[in-house]
Structures are given as C-alpha cells and as structure tokens.
C-alpha cells in the first residue's frame, strides 16, 4: 500500500533503473569510477537530508554542512581511538550531528558560514581500513546507506509528521492558529536532517581517511543546495541525481578550469530561472 503510494509507475521505473545501474557499478567500472560513484552517493545522502529541510520543511540552510562536518569529525575521532566496526561509527556520526543540531536549531533554525579550527585528522592506521580499502565493498555500504536514507525520508515525508511540516512550510500562521506548535516540528525536522547529514559526513571521513575543515565550510552546503535545486526539490530522487551531476561536473571541469564553481553557479541560476522543478520536473513533464 505504501509502495503503491510511493510514486507513479514512471517514478518507480526511474528508481529501479537508477538502483540497478548503481548496484552493478562495482562489477564493471574501473576503480576510479567506483570512487567517483562512492563520493556521489555520499553526497546524495547529504543532498537528500537537505531536501527534507529545503523541500519539505521550507527551511533553506547554508549551514547544513556543519552537521556533515560534525559527523565526519565524530567518526574520525572515534576511529583514532581504534573503535572498530562500521555501524558504531555511522551511528556516532549521526548522533553527534543530531545533538549539535538541537541547540543550533533552537537558537536560529538556520546557521550559515560555520567553520571550525583548522584541524586535519589523519587516520591512516585504522583497523577497519583494511576492509574498507576494497573500494567495491565500501561502495556497497554507501549504496545501502543511500537507499535506507531514501526509504526513511520517503516514509517520513508521507507520514502525518511530513504533512504537518508541509503545512508549516505553506502557511505557518495558519498552522499556529490550528494549534500546532510549529517551532517544535521545525526543530525536529532540523535534527533529523542533521543526523542524516552526520551519517553522510561519517561516510566521507571513512572514504577519505581524514576529516578537514573544508567539510564544514559553507560552500559544502552551497554545493548541497545546488544538487537539490538542479535535481528537483521535494522529490528525494532529484537530490540524488543532482549530487551525481554536481560531482561529475566538479571532476570534469576542475581539471580544465580553476574557477569551475562559476560554471556550477551558472547552472544553478539557470535551473532556478528556467527549470524550477529540476531534472525530476523535466522527466515528469514529458
């Protein structure tokens, strides 16, 4: 029943093609492209969490990378203490981001330009790294996390909680007049999005083997927004597509251009002006 309401047949087909295509990547792709796809999936998890804020709750955030960064640092710090096992690290990344998100959200529900001390944590001698060096295996982990994120957010968006967020986005005054404590709902959405961004950050730390302040810099949030808008807000699958576009653009363009962000910026503006529904909107229209 839920599956039936998830999406139209076209969306389901799009999802199936995307999922199968991605799952087969480790079987045929060269190492480099497995690495690219892994990075894109991590970024996709981050972008989907941003879609919950921007698309469903109507909270555009330029500070969302903070939680990505917190997840990465929490994961890296724990790994430095020789903590073994992937799931504890992912959980801690998500939980740390959620805890940090509570006061930040309560104060402002919007942060921008957050960046911390210059601090690079190399964790080259990790116990679990040996297994992770199998790029294919790590890719599958990222894919599993991305699919789970998609499913959880899809369910959340269609639940009474998601509908309430939608109502607050559409008209907060009316929701208050109907007796809804709108602040609490927004804070809850903020914390959930932060937790997922934290999980994405943990994956990034595991993948790179280090955590740097870049992860928290506002441009990381900016790239996230570009991915969500280019892919299409309020669709979850849009941000996944957008994440791949942004990452491939980054790889392809940065080889030839120093200021490749300009091209990405132009793409962003073009989508805002001419393709408000994003890539997903284009598919839906045809």
């Amino acid at each position: 029943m839920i599956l039936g309401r998830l999406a139209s047949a076209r969306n389901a087909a799009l999802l199936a093609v995307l999922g199968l295509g991605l799952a087969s990547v480790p079987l045929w792709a060269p190492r480099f492209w497995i690495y690219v796809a892994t990075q894109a999936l991590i970024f996709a998890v981050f972008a989907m969490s941003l879609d919950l804020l921007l698309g469903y709750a109507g909270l555009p955030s330029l500070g969302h990378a903070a939680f990505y960064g917190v997840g990465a640092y929490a994961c890296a710090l724990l790994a430095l203490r020789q903590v073994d096992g992937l799931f504890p690290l992912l959980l801690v990344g998500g939980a740390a981001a959620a805890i940090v998100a509570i006061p930040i959200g309560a104060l402002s529900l919007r942060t921008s330009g957050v960046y911390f001390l210059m601090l690079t944590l190399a964790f080259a001698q990790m116990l679990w790294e040996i297994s992770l060096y199998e790029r294919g295996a790590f890719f599958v982990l990222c894919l599993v996390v991305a699919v789970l994120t998609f499913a959880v957010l899809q369910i959340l968006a269609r639940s009474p909680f998601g509908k309430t967020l939608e109502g607050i986005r559409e008209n907060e005054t009316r929701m208050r007049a109907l007796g809804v404590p709108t602040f609490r709902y927004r804070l809850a959405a903020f914390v959930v999005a932060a937790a997922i961004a934290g999980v994405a950050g943990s994956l990034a730390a595991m993948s790179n083997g280090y955590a740097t302040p870049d992860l928290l810099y506002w441009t990381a949030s900016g790239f996230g927004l570009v991915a969500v808008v280019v892919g299409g807000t309020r669709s979850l699958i849009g941000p996944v597509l957008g994440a791949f576009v942004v990452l491939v653009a980054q790889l392809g363009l940065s080889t030839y251009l120093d200021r490749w962000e300009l091209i990405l910026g132009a793409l962003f503006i073009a989508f805002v002006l001419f393709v408000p529904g994003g890539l997903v909107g284009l598919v839906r229209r045809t």
Partner: protein
Amino acid sequence: MEVSASGLTVRFGALAALNHVDLEVAAGERRAVIGPNGAGKTTLLNAIAGELRPTEGSIRLGGRDATRLPAWRRARLGLGRTFQRSTLFSRLTVAENVALAVRARDRKGWRFWPLRDRPLEDEVARRLAAGGIAHLANRQAARLGHGERRILEVELALAASPSALLLDEPMAGLSGDERRTTLERLGALPDDVTVVIVEHDLDAVFALAKRITVLDHGVKIADGTPTEVRANARVQEVYLGAI
C-alpha cells in the same frame, strides 16, 4: 468558551490601534464587532488569538488567563479563527487543506508512519460536502476563485471544532449564493460555540449577532443590542446615519 479582554491596549509606536478596550463575550454568545476602517477590529482579533502581544491589558479564554499564551496554545484551548486575508495552504489541494486542520485538532502530527486514515478521510469528505465545496476537493488552493477561498478559509476554522470562533470579514467579496451558504454554515454552529465576528456586511451582522460592539479609532464607543447600538448618538455620528 467565554472570551474576554480587559483594558486591552495595542500601540504601534505613537499610534494606539486599541485603547483600553473591554470585551466580555459569554459562552455561546454571537457577538459582532463593527466600526470604520482602521477602528482596530482586526487588531482586537489578533490580540485575542495571540498573533499580537498587547501593550497593556489581559485576555481570558474560558476563565483562564491567556495573555501570555502563544497562538497555538490558545488554539488548543478551543479558540479558532479566520483571517481577513485568506490564509490557506496554497500549493495543497482543498481536501489536503481541510485534512491538515482535522489532523491538527486531533494532534496527530507526531506520527511517523504513513498509514491510511479512513476516519480522517471520511470527515474531510463530510466537511467539504457541508461547505458546498466537494467538487473542488482536488483543486489546488492557489487556483480557487476569491469566494471559494473565503469559504475554504471558514471551513479550515470550522474543521478545528472550536468552542470559540473569531471571524474576520468572512463575507467580504462573496457572491449572493456564497453568502447564503456561509451564513447557513455559521448559523448551524452548535449553540455553545462562542462567535466573535468582524464584518462590514451589516445584514450578515444583524442576521448572526444578538449583541454588537462598535469600535472607532481604537476605542469602544458602544456595546449593546442592535436597537441600542442604532440609537447611540456616537455610532450615528461615525456611520453618518447609515446604520
């Protein structure tokens, strides 16, 4: 639910939009608040509903001091309202608009699993039919005509099953048929529901309300039955005999 305000003052800088206004509306009473533009009628409703903090004075709802309660807490005490400018969920359908109101009333927002909610769907269908907008169920609120928007505005407030209802010009811009439907809807409210209506349409005011409060420049100039208010010298002055 009884609604009362005492010594209510709202200042915007040097301007006193409301100046020591007292209002006592008993449970189940139907009260109209009238007055020329800028008299402070909407300000009064906003202060009672909690969208606006009064500079001075206090507000009681059902005998409880509500002066410091946020708008959503007052709504949970049973206070419903409509807005002068339609305040809808524009990108959602008419049915989804009403569903949000019913869900808010039942406090079902903290559910995280998308189960089908038959009783809710049935109630939404019943309410749309009663409001004469069943044929618009799947229309986006942004695509409604003016009158249809006003009717949905009232339906959202009714769907919360309020025990006191503040109505801000519900008749403004309605066609003859739409006026009749809205008057019937409001007339059919249970007897124990308190209604405070701000309205320029004096026929509607006299059809609904047994008592009338008249505001002018933020000050209450009259309060009484329609006959008493009509006979009031200051009211006649303000309305130039048009009442």
